């Protein structure tokens, strides 16, 4: 049966790349009282289609409604809950951190460990660019915090399913059924990714 513990879900939404579509999606979340943790949007290979990645927290009941309500929007083409399958999530951050002469080397070491890049330097600060999943991004922010973070910006998460095939199935296919366990992927062999 449905799991009623609130969980974070990463939902990919393909939408018509039209005027007002972002406001429709954002408005849906505020109107129905769902919590959106992050949202990122961009064009896909097809310029008439945009892809949104939403991170939403909720129990199975709420998430099912979120997916149905998203699908109900006329401009929404496909909705996929990536949490149900093997997927990769990434977020990029830019951090402007205090870099006093005594701490510059240490900051660079941290950047190196996290494969972050220095994208701007001043006598008093470094600006770092880092990419990773949530835990990695949180870890680097926590390590930089003691030096004094001047400014921080995050892109919000983007996510994609692992494996050879495009996994964006229509939300409609799961409707009318209580969602069961995730089916075993036939391509499990290929689902070997690198966790960096």
């Amino acid at each position, binding site marked *: 049966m449905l799991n009623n513990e609130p969980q974070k879900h990463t939902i990919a939404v393909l939408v018509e790349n039209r005027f007002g579509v972002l406001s429709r999606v954002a408005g849906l979340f505020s109107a129905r009282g769902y919590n959106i943790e992050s949202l990122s949007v961009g064009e896909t290979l097809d310029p008439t289609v945009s892809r949104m990645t939403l991170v939403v927290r909720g129990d199975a009941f709420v998430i099912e*409604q979120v997916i*149905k309500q998203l699908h109900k929007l*006329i401009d929404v083409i496909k909705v996929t809950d990536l949490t149900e399958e093997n997927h990769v999530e990434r977020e990029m951050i830019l951090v402007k951190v205090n870099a006093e002469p005594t701490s510059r080397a240490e900051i660079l070491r941290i950047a190196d460990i996290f494969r972050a890049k220095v994208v701007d330097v001043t006598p008093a600060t470094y600006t770092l660019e880092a990419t990773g999943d949530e835990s990695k991004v949180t870890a680097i922010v926590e390590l930089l915090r003691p030096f004094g973070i001047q400014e921080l910006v995050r892109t919000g998460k983007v996510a994609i399913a692992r494996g050879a095939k495009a996994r964006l199935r229509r939300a409609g296919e799961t409707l009318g059924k209580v969602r069961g366990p995730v089916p075993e992927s036939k391509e499990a062999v290929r689902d070997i990714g690198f966790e960096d």
Partner: protein
Amino acid sequence: MKLTGARIFLECLKREGVDVLFGLPGGAVLPIYDALYDFAGLRHILVRQEAAAGHAAEGYARTTGKVGVALVTSGPAATNLVTALQDAYMDSMPIVAFTGQVPTHLIGNDAFQEADNVGITRPCTKHNFLVKDGTDLGPTIKEAFYLAATGRPGPVHVDLPKDVLVKEWSFEYPDKVHLRSYNPTYDGHPGQIKKAARAILKAKRPVLYVGGGVISSDASEEVRRLAETTQTPVTTTLMGLGAFPSDHPLSLEMLGMHGTYYANMAVHHSDCLIAVGARFDDRVTGKVEMFAPSAEIIHIDIDPSSISKNIQVHIPIVGDCRRVLARLIKEVEAETQQGVPSLAREARKQWHEQIARWKAEFPLRYDWDDEVIKPEYVIQEISNLTRGEALIVTGVGQHQMWAAQYYRFKHPRAWCTSGGLGTMGYGLPTAMGVQAAHPDKLVVNIDGDGSFQMNSQELATVYENRLPVKTVIINNGCHGMVRQWQEIIYKERYCSIDLSAGPDFVKLAEAYGCVGIRATKPSEVVPALEKAFSTPGPVVVDMVVDREENVFPMVPAGGANKDMILERPGKEAKAKAARSQTGF
């Protein structure tokens, strides 16, 4: 072919088969009104306030099954229309509303009568459009009508900037709409339908719970067949009234907050609840944990997001009510040919006996009074005199609930009421739209004195357009439903409910050129109604009724349906009601 945007607009309406348009002109839509000046074959009804145009379109749509159309100007006109759009959205009424907009180069400049129309209507429409390029007019209007009428019906709003209406554009009306992102499911899943058929047949205490979706998909015949084949009692929601005849032996009438005792008891004790085109509204379920606690729930609905929204259902079926029911009946017949389990048949007999006992125990009732008119009596007499053949519209409040309880419904698409939004003032403008669609039928607007005053200006419209709507005001001199809650739940601390200051509704009717009639004694009710129904033009009947009459049964908000209050409560029951109050 090159035409002005305004002309293209009218050509599109014509091609969509629109015959009546409810509207009110203004700066931004003047090009359309100029084109309308010598455009044949489209009747325009000038309303007195824009919300009325929207409600009239709803009434037109509900009683004809076609899409209703409203046209108003920009800014304040569009914001006035918002109430009607939300009303149509909640009750799934197929309407297309057009608003004017300032010229495209002024959008965002805080121009005169500018508002972010599409921004404002976005959450209260099924979909909306801003047309920035005249070549999009045809395809957009085609899509608007298609979206309004298909799937779960609803309001669609199209915003038309003035320059788009003025300039000339090439015009071609598309024959078809293709939307890759919109594909409603009409046929239910066969496996689920089979499962539902088996569940219904093996049930000992089944109940059909039928909502407005059955009316929208014209499935009342199928409901009747399923009910009769399986001997399943039927209760309807407020929006579903007319989907099943009130006088049918299997009818339980309305359920929910002001539903009948027997409908609520039957649902509470049922072991198989078949919800068709209904959405488990909080006014229907009461406390959800206590709603049909022992039932296996089957839910047939075209909108997947209605399913398992408020109540977890066991057998969901996404699809058009009529198609799913037709298939379900076939499955049931196929199963019965293999022999119904005789156990269920025996149990059904007991179930019907139990329901008969509930019906005998607490029928709908009120205390007769020789001096004061009881509102329930007025509704009964409207029902008797029209023999259930009239088209009934209501406002919102106590009178609406009495109309729902005491009118004997015979036909679908003969009842218009604001169910989801509960929009006071809905009555007269909607009745106007109904009458425009059915010039030769008797249209009765059962209204309240509070509700009626929210749109009484439309008396001018019905008079001018010879729309012979009969308005019966159940006049108790106060906001009766609020009074009832304050009496029962707020310890008789009456606050801001008194409407006894007037106006004189007879004089008001006469001021607009309509006929006004008043009745103050029970003996005057029938003559007043007879006179109203036989007078050719629009009539207002002021029925001065008992101020203190309450609607019973009543389930206090947040309470369980089985704990209905059946009559004016004593102190103890009031204290209980106050405790059950959960804040809405």
